[in-house]
């Protein structure tokens, strides 16, 4: 069985356990879900390494490759967050995204590896990886913010549903979202910095007014505003969560419209 399929299987079982955990709240099930996710991550890593060796670069040039890397970093960030905050109920919402992305990248993996990219340097590989890590962290913060808004809506409407009691507290959701954004922000900052260095080395200029560069800075400022406003001002709570959701819409815009139609130097990340 190919490593990517085995990883996919582990993700699937882990997802089933996370969903079941939401329903039954049994600790051994949560432990099993995390362990299987970790197993899936390990196998996924080997599968990514195979792909990277064939390309002699980080897999970013084709959509399945970059989505696979995105799924892996999403799972990695989520697992780190889960261990740090000791909270597993969000897994039922994050692991489905990991699974779907991993499934897509496995199903549509090209038979022949795409042409090797022009740039092979370690700095470039780090630039790609850090940016995708940032996007995966923002994706988790987005999921957490959506859960926050739903929970908050139920609380204010004085109509908590049956699953309401299974979710983490608002305060914890906010804290987890902030941790995730903090990781993403640092990764994006470093990623942009490395991108500028690579640009200088390859094109001879630090800043080339590429739409991707401009949108990335907008994203950076948007999330920095989220962290600052959500901690110190009257924006804390639902307003900060809305800001986080809007920021992620900009991220999606950057990953789709900007990458596919506007940017000259970025394609799938």
């Amino acid at each position, binding site marked *: 069985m190919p490593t990517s399929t085995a990883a996919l299987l582990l993700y699937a079982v882990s997802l089933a356990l996370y969903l079941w955990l939401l329903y039954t709240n*049994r600790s051994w099930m949560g432990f099993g879900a995390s362990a299987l996710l970790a197993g899936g991550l390990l196998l996924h890593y080997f599968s990514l390494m195979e792909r990277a060796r064939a390309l002699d670069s980080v897999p970013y040039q084709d959509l399945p490759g970059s989505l696979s890397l995105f799924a892996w970093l999403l799972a990695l960030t989520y697992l780190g967050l889960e261990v740090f905050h000791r909270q597993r109920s969000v897994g039922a919402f994050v692991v489905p995204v990991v699974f779907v992305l991993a499934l897509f990248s496995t199903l549509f993996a090209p038979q022949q590896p795409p042409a090797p990219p022009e740039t092979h340097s370690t700095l470039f590989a780090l630039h790609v990886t850090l940016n995708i890590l940032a996007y995966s962290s923002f994706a988790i913060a987005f999921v957490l913010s959506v859960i926050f808004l739903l*929970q908050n809506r139920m*609380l204010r409407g004085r109509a908590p549903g*049956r699953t309401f009691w299974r*979710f983490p507290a608002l305060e914890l959701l906010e804290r987890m979202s902030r941790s995730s954004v903090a990781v993403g922000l640092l990764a994006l900052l470093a990623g942009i910095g490395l991108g500028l260095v690579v640009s200088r080395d390859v094109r001879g200029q630090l800043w080339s007014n590429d739409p991707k560069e401009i949108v990335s800075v907008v994203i950076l400022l948007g999330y920095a505003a989220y962290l600052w406003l959500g901690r110190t*001002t*009257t924006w*804390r709570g639902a307003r900060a969560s809305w800001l986080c959701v809007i920021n992620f819409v900009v991220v999606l815009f950057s990953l789709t419209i900007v990458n596919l139609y506007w940017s000259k130097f970025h394609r799938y990340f």
Partner: protein
Amino acid sequence: MRILVMGINHRTAPVELRERVAFDPEQARRAAAELTRPTHQDRPLLREAAVLSTCNRSELYAVPDPDATETVPALRDYFAAFHGLSPVALASSLYVHEDADAVRHLFRVAAGLDSMLLGEAEILGQVRTAYQRAFANGTTGPVLNRMFQGALEAGRRVRSQTGLGAGPMSVAFAAVKLAEQIFGRLRECTALIVGAGTVGEQLVEHLRNRKIRNLLVANRSWERACALAARFHGEAVRWDELSQIWSRPDIVVTSLAVREPWLTRAELETAMAARGNRPLFVIDLGVPRNVEAEVGTLYNVYLYNLDSLAEIVKQNRRARQQEIPRAEQIVEEHVARFEAWRAAAEMVELLRSLRHQGTAPDAAALDQRLERMHDLSPQERRDLRGIAEELLALARLEPEAQLRHMPALRERVRRMDRVRDLLGITKGTV
């Protein structure tokens, strides 16, 4: 191998009577030991016994000795005498369930299906404690061990696989659970208690159990505030200084007897700005309401009054009711599993008896005995004879282990006493 349960519960007896027939742990041990101890006739009344006593029920689970006759009246007398009551006083409240009904009763109890508060969590622990006590006391045997373990398993499954225990079922508990959904752990929170009613006091108790960091207590009367603060182990706050402490509480519980709301939107709006819009959970337990309804529209203020809390409790109760069929299904699965084990155990016992007696009746003797069973129909006679012949063949040929895998025959051997009579086996041979 009979099983019976005898007892009273919240459905059959008022609290005054339940209090009188409650067993404390020592009494539970003593009663089970006395009933399983050989009497002057050298046979105990019960082979196995366990007592389950909670604030809502006092029950005796028993496996009577096969030779004992009139077990139920004897137990009824013992039950009454143990608590210094006349059997007549208990007669209308005492229930008795036998065999599969007794098994089903215990399994339903463990699952919380027979509780006053449907799906309550405590009962499973109480059943476990009662079983562990009887086991340590040496009054349980293979039947009750298996039955209690089955009940605990059924209870655990019902709790984990259905929503029977989900959602708070009291106003005070609902309020505390909501607070936890907002703030997470309450250890870092501060609550302001204004006035105190019955529900308010229950709520304070829940908050204290969750080790809330600070309790501030305010009242219009300073003396009353001090008295309440002393009772709740909190800090008294003067009424006229209330506006200065709004930055401190995360939770406000108010239950003052006032005609007009004392907490208005305008006042809290200023307070929220001063506290940097940190979330505030306001629980209004007062009737008439203590807090203006518009307070609930303020950003990051979560306002719940008695009606909204009662509605949550009502919804949870309804949700739990909807889970009853699923819970009953799980209980039935476990009852069927236990009954299959019991039937197999009875068959093994029967075959041992046959072997023990050495001689088996021949065909003519079987016919003679069947003739004496006047209440049987011709079809029943044929069935019974078939079963007897099969059992005799098994007793001669088959190893016992194989019997456990013969569900069809086990199903057919329902009337063990009849089969025993037919094969001429005396009870308690083994």
